[in-house]
C-alpha cells in the first residue's frame, strides 16, 4: 500500500511517500504565502521523484498548522498526534517529545503505542520558537547554522534579558556593541530558548527517552542548551523535521483519517473562545 504524509507548517512543507512502511521518497520546500500551491507543488515533485502518479497513492493524510491547505489529502490529524506517531515509529522508547518549529514549540507525553497522553504548546508568540533564533542570528549577522556551531565553543554563560524577539534583537545588538563574543551571545540565545521550551516540557513531565524533533532539532547549539537545561540526554532522530509528515503517513497506513487529541486540544479551542 502506498500512502503519503504531508506536513504544512508555518515555514516549510514536508512530504513523505511510503510503501508498506518503507520510505519511497521525501521532500521539503518553503511554505511561502501561497500555502496551498506550495503543498500541491511539493507533493507532485515528491511523487515524480518516486515515479508515481497521484492515482497510485491510496491515502494522504495532512498535518501541520496549515494542514487545511493540502486540499488533496483525505484526512487531517493534529500536529501532536502526527509527532507522536512519527517519533514512536523511529524511536520506540520515546516518552517525551519536544517539537520546536518555526512558529510553535510543543511538548508531548506519548504512550508506547504512539498515543498522545498529554501535551502543552507554546504558540502565538515568537519567544519560544525557531523564529526567535532566526531573528537573533540576523542580528548577529551570521547564519543559524553558524550560530549553532559557535555557541558550542562558548565558555561563558550570560543571561538574555529580553523575552520578546523584537527586544531580543536590540539586546543582541547592544551585546555586540559591548564587545561580547559572538559565541557567548549565540549560547545566550540558545540557553534562553531552551529554558522556555524546558518549562513547557516540564508541564507534561520529562520522562526518558526525551526526543527532540522539528526544525530546531537540527540546531546543535539549541540541543546542547536543552540537554544542559533539563539535565537529561536527548535523542535527535535523522531528519527531525520530517517526523510530522512521517507520522501523518503512518496514520494514513493505519487508515486513521482523523484523530482526536484529547484534553488540551479542547482546551485550546476554549482558549480561543475565551479570548474572543
Amino acid at each position, binding site marked *: 500500500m502506498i500512502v503519503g504524509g504531508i506536513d504544512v507548517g508555518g515555514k516549510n512543507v514536508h512530504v513523505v511517500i511510503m510503501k508498506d512502511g518503507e520510505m519511497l521518497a521525501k521532500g521539503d520546500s518553503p511554505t511561502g504565502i501561497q500555502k496551498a500551491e506550495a503543498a500541491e507543488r511539493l507533493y507532485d515533485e515528491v511523487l515524480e521523484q518516486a515515479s508515481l502518479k497521484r492515482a497510485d497513492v491510496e491515502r494522504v493524510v495532512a498535518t501541520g498548522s496549515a494542514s487545511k491547505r493540502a486540499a488533496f489529502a483525505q484526512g487531517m490529524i493534529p500536529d501532536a498526534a502526527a509527532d507522536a506517531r512519527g517519533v514512536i515509529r523511529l524511536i520506540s522508547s520515546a516518552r517525551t517529545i519536544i517539537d520546536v518549529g518555526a512558529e510553535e514549540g510543543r511538548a508531548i507525553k506519548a504512550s508506547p503505542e504512539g498515543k498522545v497522553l498529554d501535551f502543552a504548546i507554546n504558540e*502565538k*508568540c515568537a*519567544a519560544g520558537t525557531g523564529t526567535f533564533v532566526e531573528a537573533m542570528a540576523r542580528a548577529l549577522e551570521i547564519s543559524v547554522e553558524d550560530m549553532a556551531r559557535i555557541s558550542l565553543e562558548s565558555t561563558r554563560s550570560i543571561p538574555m*534579558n529580553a*523575552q520578546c524577539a523584537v527586544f531580543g534583537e536590540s539586546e543582541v545588538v547592544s551585546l555586540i556593541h559591548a564587545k561580547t563574543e559572538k559565541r557567548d551571545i549565540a549560547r545566550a540565545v540558545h540557553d534562553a530558548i531552551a529554558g522556555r521550551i524546558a518549562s513547557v516540557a516540564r*508541564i507534561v513531565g520529562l520522562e526518558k527517552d526525551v526526543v527532540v524533533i522539528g526544525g530546531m532539532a537540527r540546531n546543535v547549539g539549541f540541543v546542547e542548551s536543552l540537554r544542559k537545561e533539563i539535565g537529561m540526554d536527548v535523542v535527535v532522530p535523522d531528519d527531525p523535521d520530517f517526523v510530522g509528515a512521517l507520522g501523518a503517513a503512518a496514520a494514513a497506513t493505519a487508515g486513521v483519517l482523523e484523530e482526536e487529541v484529547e484534553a488540551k486540544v479542547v*482546551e*485550546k479551542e476554549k*482558549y480561543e473562545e475565551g479570548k474572543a
Partner: protein
Amino acid sequence: MKAFFGFKDGSGDWFVIIDTDRCSGCGKCAEACPSNVLQVGEDEYDPFNEEPVASVREEERKKIRYSCAPCQPGYGETPTPCITACEPGAISHSEGWKLMYGRQ
C-alpha cells in the same frame, strides 16, 4: 491597589495579581514560593504607604509564565503554595495558565 505583575503576549495573560490592600506584608508567600518569584518590601507604587507589601521580583516579571507554570496556577488539584500561604487572600493568577495548560 491591585498590582498586576507579568505580561500579556500573543499566547495569553500571564499575571500574578497582588491586592496590596489585603496584603499584610507577612512574607509567608515569598517563603512558600518554590520559584523564588515573590518578595516583600517597600510599596513601590505608593510612596506614602509605610507598610511593607508583597510584589513579584523585577527579574521575574518578564518570565512569570514559565516561573509560575510548575505550580499549575488556576488549574492544579490544589491551590498554588503562595495562595495557600496567604491568609488574607491577597494573591491570584490570571487565566493564562489555566486556559493554556489546564484540563477540565
